């Protein structure tokens, strides 16, 4: 019993971080300490104080309010990109796993080809062609997580196909759709949950990178990655701007990573 409790500490830390950030996002929908876009020219690059908890940026905008607003974008991009990745990953993985043979081989080579673009290169290429902005950022980042989902779904399909009860219901004349929904889907929910949680943090990191390069979210939409880009020139004069913004991104990535690892550990224990 002792062992069990100690092992899930990282999971609880992750859950707490994610819940707090989510709460911050919810609050920001109704309330921020200042108008995130209000410029106070007399308070540029102000140090953190009671008035401005996280200080102000180079235009005198309240950093905390901007962070809160940026969390909306982070969650929006995270959730949407993972959904996009899951959707296409499911299509490819299910085709490969269900049909097997040369279709499988072709799908896997396509996945290999997608994985040949390291890090955010795939997203960079897509955004170059399709113009930056929230919508295209979501689509491009979603493409990055397609291989992970496709592989999981493919192997689940292949495994489940081998089970006797699936063979039996196939022999009874059950249709493909029936088999997929009745037997295969329930089995892949939990590995998908783990992959989705971990992809979420990957997406947040990639979005920060893209926005830093100026290829992600465009003004006036708020983004933590772009805040970092704006903070960089003031690294010597206003180090807190850089430190606070980066810490926020790190926290969110850490939270989702711990959460994903925790869910996976619990699954491993069950099986």
């Amino acid at each position, binding site marked *: 019993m002792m062992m069990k409790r100690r092992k899930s500490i*990282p999971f609880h830390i992750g859950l707490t971080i994610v819940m707090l950030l989510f709460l911050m996002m919810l609050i920001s929908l109704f309330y921020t300490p200042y108008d995130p876009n209000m410029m106070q020219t007399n308070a540029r690059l102000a140090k953190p104080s009671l008035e401005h908890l996280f200080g102000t940026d180079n235009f005198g905008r309240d950093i905390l309010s901007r962070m809160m607003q940026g969390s909306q974008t982070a969650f929006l991009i995270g959730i949407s990109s993972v959904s996009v990745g899951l959707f296409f990953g499911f299509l490819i993985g299910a085709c490969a796993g269900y049909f097997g043979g040369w279709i499988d081989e072709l799908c896997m*080579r*396509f996945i*290999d*080809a*997608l*994985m*040949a*673009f*390291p*890090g*955010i*290169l795939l997203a*960079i*290429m*897509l955004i*170059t*062609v*399709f113009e930056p902005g929230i919508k295209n950022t979501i689509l491009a980042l979603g493409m990055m997580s397609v291989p992970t989902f496709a592989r999981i779904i493919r192997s689940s399909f292949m495994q489940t196909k081998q089970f006797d009860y699936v063979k039996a219901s196939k022999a009874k004349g059950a249709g493909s759709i029936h088999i997929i929904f009745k037997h295969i889907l329930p089995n892949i929910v939990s590995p998908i949950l783990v992959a989705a949680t971990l992809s979420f*943090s990957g997406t947040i*990191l990639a979005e*920060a*990178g893209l926005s*830093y*390069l*100026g*290829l992600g979210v465009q003004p006036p939409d708020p983004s933590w990655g772009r805040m*970092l880009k704006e903070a*960089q020139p003031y*690294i*010597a004069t206003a*180090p807190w701007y*850089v*430190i606070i*913004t*980066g810490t926020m*991104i*790190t*926290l969110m*990535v*850490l939270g989702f*990573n*711990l959460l994903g*690892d925790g869910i996976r550990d619990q699954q491993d224990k069950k099986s």
Partner: protein
Amino acid sequence: MRYIIYKLSTFIVTIALVSLIVFSVFQVLPGRPAQTILGIDADEQQVAQLEKELGLDQSLWEQYISWISGLFSGDLGESLKYQQPVIDILLDRIPVTFSLAMLSIVLTALIGIPLGIFIARTDGKWVSTILSMLTQLGIAIPSFWFGFILILLFSVTFKLFPSNSYVPWSEDFFGALQSFFLPALALALSNIAIMIRYLRNTILDQMKMDYVRTAKCKGLSERWIVYRHILRNAFIPILTIFGMIIADTLGGSIIIENVFSLPGLGSLLIQSISARDFPLVQSMVLYIAVLVVFINFLVDLLYKVIDPRIRLKG
């Protein structure tokens, strides 16, 4: 032998698919490249003339074939912005990215491998627990932000390393090493963390194996068992992760080069995108992707060479 042929054929198919993806994505671009080159003032006849020169009047399939055959002959087309063959521009930038990536991978191995062994051997003790938590942080920190922090610490506060000043190897060896060190470290951070975690898990898994018990029964010390028995087994899976780390380093260098103003492929890529120099972007993306596929192919082959269990069956 059959394995090598299979791997070789998947390698070729993957490269073909990668090139198709890159080619077709860039077909989506609105407007006519010839018009972009000549400017808005050029009339239809001039544009058509240039299109003919560039081979843009051919069918898509013919364009693809000529693009691909250009790749094999080292002719990657001409940059719109620099008015130079793409290959010359790339050859100019490659040494910078190569040095950065190599240094980063060396740092990953030098820091990650000993630490991974250390926390596996001290598993259960508090040092090990704290280090494990730090690896979680190492994975979560965005590499470019870590780059900022390094600049803040070592360049701004302690003035130990120059920031934003690239020194080529040919000019000053130690100066170059200095200018590459911080970016390489920033780039290595998450890979170090991944290496540590992976090595730790592999070693702990191996420790449960029967052959470790046999080795203990021979009176061998734990040190001997870890270094002579377990690591031999652990390095085989480690090789797989090295392929991943190299790819990650290439991808990460795109951002890090921009943070530290290193004139490598990554900063060239971003400059070319803002200059809308698409032939250059297209070639670079393909170049990097093909390199990654090639490295993975090499890792697959190497895997077979170092694992004696597979070497014979071959």
